[in-house]
């Protein structure tokens, strides 16, 4: 308060004048005037309504709703300290630091109450404290501290920067996902297993297990099921990074768990996607070697983590186990042979591809899939980047998924190619990124056109 104010108030201080304040719960308390006047809102009230306001119990100044009695006493303590003019800045700072040490709930209430009383220094102080609480923490920790509901779909979490709100496909995906989740929960209850932490992977499994079925068996089997895909082909072309990526992971996940399992997904009558009908419950034991299975599980986890962390814009050093759950529905729906290829591609990557000296080596591998021209995987500086390219974007161009920090273990055995065209560039060990990039670009262009042609080829098959 300025000295002029103090001068004016001084004679009143002699009489120790009080102001009556009433909180929303009806309780009325008496507060020394100079302390209460430190709050701009109370000050305005008094000045506006004349000095009669607040001078007695009957015409107490009613405080805004967000100021409950506990907060009021806190705020008055704050005001009591700060309205004394003779304190040094250092003293005030020390007091503030001590003052602000309280649990988060009260901190939030304090910020809210101070804001409604227009006490800006206190608002800034509590905001600063809240910011300090938030900074550097992972989303889970923040949610736990503030009791925030974890109600974003996994897809939204993966791609927070995309505005998915208006996309009808996403709504569909969300619904499917929720449904699947419920089913899985029930199933798990029956099996009596701990479900919570596995539910997402499971749903991934179960939603995409049919891919595996196709992986193992002849690809044509799956394709034959999509006869009514002709019209949808165009929409299928619209690929999302999301889907394809999820695709990739799901497929890997798939391979990890249930090769050969067949799942039953409810078929979607909706226009845009037709579900892969045969999705079902995921975790069918397919008799895979457990060691291999574990390795693949780890692979998937890693992959998923990288995926998640990169899309949540978190720093590279973040290795929090962000729970990776994919909205498997989306992927299933968009499953085309082309995605099957991706599946087999990843499969090959993991299983049958020997990758020695991963670091600093740029490799290009053409994966050829039975009915498509080319697939590329290029790894640049093995410890940091994998580009899976060749999926179509909305215009039929390329979509790029930069997956950071993907670590692929060495697999055993050589890659299996079939029907590799004569003019392929195979396993180019290229230590210079530039050369790799150049060649890569070349193929990329070829790939664009070839993918388009592939899709047009594929379409009539259904």
């Amino acid at each position, binding site marked *: 308060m300025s000295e002029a104010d103090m001068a004016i108030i001084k004679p009143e201080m002699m009489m120790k004048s009080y102001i009556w304040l009433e909180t929303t719960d009806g309780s009325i308390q008496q507060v020394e005037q100079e302390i209460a006047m430190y709050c701009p809102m109370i000050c305005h009230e008094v000045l506006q309504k004349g000095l009669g306001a607040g001078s007695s119990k009957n015409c107490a100044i009613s405080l805004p709703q967000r100021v409950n009695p506990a907060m009021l006493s806190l705020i008055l303590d704050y005001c009591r300290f700060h309205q004394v003019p003779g304190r040094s800045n250092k003293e005030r700072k020390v007091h503030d630091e001590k003052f602000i040490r309280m649990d988060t709930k009260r901190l939030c209430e304090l910020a809210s109450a101070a804001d409604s009383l227009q006490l800006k220094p206190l608002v800034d102080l509590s905001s600063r404290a809240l910011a300090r609480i938030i900074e550097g923490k992972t989303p889970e920790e923040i949610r736990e501290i503030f009791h925030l*509901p974890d109600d974003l779909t996994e897809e939204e979490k993966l791609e927070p920067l995309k505005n998915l709100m208006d996309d009808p496909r996403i709504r569909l995906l969300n619904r499917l996902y929720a449904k699947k989740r419920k089913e899985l929960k029930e199933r798990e209850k029956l099996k009596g297993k701990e479900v919570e932490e596995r539910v997402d992977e499971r749903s991934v499994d179960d939603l995409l297990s049919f891919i595996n079925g196709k992986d193992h068996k002849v690809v044509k089997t799956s394709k034959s099921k999509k006869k009514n895909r002709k019209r949808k082909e165009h929409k299928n072309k619209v690929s999302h990074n999301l889907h394809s990526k999820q695709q990739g992971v799901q497929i890997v996940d798939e391979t990890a768990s249930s090769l050969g399992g067949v799942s039953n997904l409810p078929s979607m009558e909706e226009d845009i996607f037709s579900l892969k009908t045969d999705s079902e419950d995921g975790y069918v034991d397919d008799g895979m070697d457990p060691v291999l299975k574990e390795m693949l599980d780890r692979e998937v986890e890693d992959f998923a983590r990288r995926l998640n962390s990169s899309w949540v814009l978190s*720093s590279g050093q973040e290795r929090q186990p962000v729970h990776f759950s994919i909205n498997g529905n989306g992927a299933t729906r968009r499953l085309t042979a082309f995605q099957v290829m991706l599946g087999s591609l990843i499969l090959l990557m993991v299983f049958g591809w020997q990758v020695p000296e991963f670091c600093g080596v740029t490799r290009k591998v053409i994966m050829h899939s039975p009915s498509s021209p080319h697939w590329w995987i290029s790894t640049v500086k093995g410890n940091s980047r994998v580009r899976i390219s060749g999926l179509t974007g909305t215009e039929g161009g390329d979509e790029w998924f930069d997956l950071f920090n993907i670590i692929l273990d060495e697999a055993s055995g050589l890659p299996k190619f079939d029907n590799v065209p004569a003019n392929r560039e195979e396993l180019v060990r290229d230590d210079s990124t530039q050369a790799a990039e150049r060649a890569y670009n070349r193929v990329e262009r070829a790939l664009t056109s070839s993918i388009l042609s592939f899709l047009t080829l594929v379409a009539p098959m259904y």
Partner: protein
Amino acid sequence: MGESPDLISDLPQSILENILTRLSLRDAIRTSVLSTKWRYKWSTLTDLMFDEKCVAPSTDRAVVETNLVRFITGVLLLHQGPIHKFHLSTSFLQCRPDIDQWLLFLSRNGIKELVLELGEGEFRVPSCLFSCLKLTRLELCHCEFDPPKSFNGFSSLKSLNLHQILVSPEAIESLISGCPLLEFLSLSYFDSLVLSISAPNLMYLYLDGEFKDIFLENTPKLVAISVSMYMHEDVADFEQSSDYNLVKFLGGVPLLEKLVGYIYFTKYLSIGDDPGRLPITYIHLKTIELYQVSFEDANEVLVLLRLVTHSPNLKELKVSASPIQLFPLEEESFDLFERDYLDYKLPRLETVRMTDVSGIRNELEFIRFLMGTSPVLEAVVVTSSLSDKDARMEMVVELLRFPRVSPRAQLLFLQD
């Protein structure tokens, strides 16, 4: 999952923005994954500060660059509402077309404060920048600045900071005169600039570079000046006009409170014909810091004296002497101290700091002058650059002889 209610999401937007602005931009954007309510809370922030800490660190520059570009583009696209502050300080980005697009976007969203500190490389500022008429602060570093002919200046600009900018002198002059509200001007890393500054509201001036000639034409409100003036070897360039540079430069700044000069500033001021007295008295001048004053040059000492004696409220004086030349100039002027300023008083001077003193006559006389005219002097701190112990001792002895007007004056002699 308990029944606890959400603590924070329902706080008023002003508080949430207050909190989000205190986080780094990365952390603020990461709140979008917390819950549905938080998804777009960050998108109305009006202050965006980008640097390379926004993306994951990596040893590969190109990776960081691409990520940063993608990050900034993403943020700008998802942002809603006006953007008032945009700071980009990173050496990873040099010259990219993306920056042009960002500036175009900003120019359409009411940008008020723009700070662009890029890496080395001549990024040419796009023309859309000159249509950001709401700009109040502009800071450019390592850019090429070429305003179009129709550009009339930023009518709201208050702070202009140009560092290592490629620009023509006429453009700068017209820019400065086209910003009537300009209060803070900083020009650094320029070469051979001949500048005439006309800014009626200018309060803080910071110049650093090789200026051939500076003329403060219309700067009545200047409060603080700091000039680091480098010079060509060829000093003859300077001695063209007969106007006393001291008058030319400091003649029109009556409200000056702080004057700081480095390198050849004092030399620059000393050029020209000395008319005797200065036209104005600097009533508000409280701090004078002149570094690298060559005490062998009588003209420079005269400049120093004039400034000191025309500042009745001077409180703090810091002078550093430049090292003596191999061929010292004539030291004929030490009686000028006694000649003109016999009864002079510096009524408020409290601290004097002289560094790199070599013990030549002029320096010592100057200190004697100060000690004899400052009734409230508290400390005279002298640091010497002499390596010879005997010479130092001599100097100290000499200094101790000087009479002191102030009873509290202390002569502190510090080892360098």
